[in-house]
């Protein structure tokens, strides 16, 4: 039984149904938020601030070095070095769900790709998967393998970018010198354990190499993103918005020359994967040894959701009926992790547990009469359009297939509405997602079917890296005991090696297929004119990604995109529980070394936020009146015009 909070029960055969006798099983009571900056709380905060100069409002607006527009509001106690309150604010309306209504479903592949300028290709693939389920068409094996390659290459672009261009600078010489000079002194004499792999003798040398613009590791990461992009465009046509992804496969043929060109580039990630693992292992160890409290930076419960990706070319049939079977045969199997344990690998259960709430988001509740629903909101929903999925499994009125996007722009109010992100929940719990949730689900999965280079042990994942310039090596990622910002970055580092091995495995399979004359990459299809539903379950570099489609008469009736950053930038839910960014920052100790409050830079808060690799196209910001961190000020997160707070 994977659900603890939803009104769903399973019989002995594993069939799901609503719990017997519940008159309105999805109904819920909301809890009123009592933020310090509520009109009532405002006085409380002002009194606190007047009495205690160390209590300060700090707004990160925008959070820099993330993709898109995110603002982050905090109240911090600089004396006790605690964060008292957090609010994560997605400051832009995405709107693709509205744009796609009434369009030819094939447009969704190209339009939804524009949701992201970093990883648009994964939206194209996810959209193609949703259409394939709705159309009833699946690609031939080489088409599936080619898509696997494309997504691998996209992640090999994405992960170095995050580790060295976005999050990495927080661990570089300038940042460490400025925020914790005592750590810099320690780094100058601290020997690296992995010098043989990455070449840096001391931690100071390594941190210097991470310096933005001038550091060797920064420059190398830029170069490696190019290597991945070059490989991608060989079959994707262009990047980040590929032209060759279609329902039923690819619109480009693939030959041995293409595969060899791609293989040359994948091979460069064998060494690079080892090197990046060595670097982030050394960084984590250094900080933990210097101060064990760094394990608590960005800490939150080990609750994660992972849709899985990289389909088995001989298992994927695009059907919802068989989604549990073909899902489990993926290189990265789907999974939901609660308190560190894998509670399900069933895609239907993963799908069944999804809900999106809008109590604190700039949207109307579609189940209310003034939305498009016919109920009273709060789960008193009347009749949902889809009370069950196609297999009879119960679905919430807040499930993406039932959801309507009804934007309602209004002023920011921490008690009411303050974000354009919805609050996605699984079994009514906040979940995070990322390449590490992929490793986690894979490490704990049983009967793993792709063990040529990857070996899950239950509490670790062994990766056999072939010899390139560096000798062959076995890397082992361990499911972490402490979960926080450093482990997210370490997991992302291991994911480069993991992804490279999946890419290589798929490359070898593709070569065999081409050698055997199995060169077909697409299956013909027609756009059905009758009523259809579908879902694409895939992943982005940052984790979970789904597209849910409802179509009729050949056009889209409803299209819902649920991205990893929507999960993680989530505002509070109906019960007042924070989203993952909010939760992680709230639990972050302020370890920065500062004398006066005005010197506070918020490095630990920023490390916590950036460890999630936020990719909003919607962001979080900290700024002070005279120290705006980026030029991309979308709106002030603080929602107040007074000046008694710091902006970073």
């Amino acid at each position, binding site marked *: 039984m994977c659900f603890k909070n939803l009104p769903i029960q399973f019989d002995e055969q594993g069939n799901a149904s609503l719990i017997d006798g519940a008159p309105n099983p999805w109904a819920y009571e909301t809890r009123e938020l009592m933020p310090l900056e509520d009109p009532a709380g405002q006085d409380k905060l002002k009194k606190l601030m007047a009495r205690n100069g160390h209590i300060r409002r700090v707004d990160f607006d925008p959070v*820099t070095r*993330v993709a898109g527009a995110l603002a982050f509001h905090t109240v911090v106690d600089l004396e006790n070095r605690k964060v008292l309150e957090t609010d994560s604010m997605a400051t832009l309306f995405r709107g693709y769900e509205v744009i796609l209504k009434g369009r030819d479903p094939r447009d969704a592949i190209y339009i939804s790709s524009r949701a*992201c300028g*970093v990883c648009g290709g994964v939206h194209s693939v996810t959209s193609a998967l949703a259409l394939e389920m709705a159309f009833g068409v699946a690609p031939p094996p080489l088409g599936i393998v080619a898509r696997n390659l494309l997504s691998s290459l996209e992640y090999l672009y994405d992960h170095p970018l995050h580790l060295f261009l976005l999050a990495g600078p927080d661990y570089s010489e300038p940042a460490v010198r400025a925020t914790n000079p005592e750590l810099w002194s320690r780094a100058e004499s601290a020997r690296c354990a992995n010098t043989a792999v990455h070449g840096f003798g001391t931690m100071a040398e390594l941190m210097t190499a991470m310096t933005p613009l001038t550091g060797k590791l920064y420059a190398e990461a*830029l170069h490696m993103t190019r290597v991945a992009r070059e490989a991608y465009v060989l079959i994707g046509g262009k990047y980040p918005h590929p032209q060759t992804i279609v329902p039923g496969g690819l619109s480009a043929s693939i030959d041995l020359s293409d595969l060899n060109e791609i293989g040359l580039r994948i091979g460069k990630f064998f060494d690079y994967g080892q090197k990046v693992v060595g670097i982030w292992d050394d960084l984590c160890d250094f900080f933990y040894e210097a101060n064990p409290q760094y394990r608590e930076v960005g800490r939150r419960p080990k609750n994660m959701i992972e849709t899985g990706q990289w389909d088995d070319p001989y298992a994927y049939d695009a059907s919802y009926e068989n989604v549990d079977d073909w899902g489990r045969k993926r290189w990265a199997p789907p999974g939901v992790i609660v308190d560190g344990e894998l509670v399900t690998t069933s895609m239907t259960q993963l799908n069944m547990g999804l809900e999106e709430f809008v109590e604190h988001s700039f949207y109307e509740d579609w189940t209310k009469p003034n939305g498009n629903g016919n109920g009273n909101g709060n789960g008193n929903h009347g009749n949902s359009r889809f009370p069950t999925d196609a297999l009879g499994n119960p679905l919430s009125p807040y499930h993406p297939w039932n959801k309507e996007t009804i934007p309602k722009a209004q002023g920011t109010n921490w008690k009411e509405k303050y974000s354009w992100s919805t609050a996605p929940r699984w079994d009514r719990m906040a979940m995070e997602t990322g390449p590490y949730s992929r490793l986690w689900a894979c490490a704990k999965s049983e009967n793993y079917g792709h063990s040529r280079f990857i070996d899950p042990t239950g509490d670790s994942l062994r990766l056999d890296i072939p010899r390139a310039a560096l000798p062959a090596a076995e890397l082992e990622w361990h499911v972490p005991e402490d979960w926080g910002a450093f482990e997210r970055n370490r997991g992302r580092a291991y994911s480069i090696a993991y992804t490279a091995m999946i890419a290589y495995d798929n490359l070898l399979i593709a070569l065999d297929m081409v050698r055997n004359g199995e060169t077909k990459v697409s299956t013909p299809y027609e756009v059905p004119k009758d009523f259809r539903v579908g879902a694409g379950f895939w992943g982005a570099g940052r984790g979970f990604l789904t597209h849910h489609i409802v179509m009729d008469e050949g056009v889209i009736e409803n299209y819902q995109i649920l991205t990893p950053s929507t999960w993680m930038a989530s505002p509070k839910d109906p019960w007042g529980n924070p989203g993952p960014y909010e939760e992680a920052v709230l639990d972050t100790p302020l370890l920065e070394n500062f004398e006066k409050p005005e010197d506070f830079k918020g490095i630990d808060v920023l490390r916590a936020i950036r460890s999630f690799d936020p990719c909003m196209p919607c962001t979080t910001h900290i700024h002070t009146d005279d120290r705006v961190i980026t030029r*991309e000020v979308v709106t002030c997160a603080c929602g107040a015009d007074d000046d008694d707070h710091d902006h970073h």
Partner: protein
Amino acid sequence: MTTTTTITEPAVGLRVLVGGVGYRFLRDGSVGGWVTDELMERAGGDIEVEDLSYHPVGLHQNLEDRAPYDRIVLVASMARGRPPGTITSYRWDGVLPPVEKIQDRVSEAVTGVIELDNTLIVCAAFGSLPADVRVVEVEPEDEGWGEGFSDTVTAVLPKVLETVWSFTRP
């Protein structure tokens, strides 16, 4: 400064890259791409015309692979508070902002932001621009979704073309 140059014959011996920067289908915001399309047929010899509307780190990497240009000419729509339709052309002074700001621009570049200032700053910071960079900007009136341009910008498009092309001369 508004130029009124009407030179149309390309020069010989000056290796020039002419490139538009911006997004398509954003009304006046799409001037850069339109100019690229229009000037493509004039390219030849030492003059290359190319749509440079992609992320500046990628452009920097591509420029590094090529034989050096004597001059790069960039054209884009930029909203800077001038009267709509204003054409501003200048030789870029190459002055870079502080390192932190450059870093922000690189972060924006790799996360998908395509913009003239980003292109100039990122490519210059990494050293892939020649000393001679010319810029032609057009002040937009309408940057909403859609094809075509506002009447104001439509009226100045011929002048934009010739201003850009004039920079292919020594």
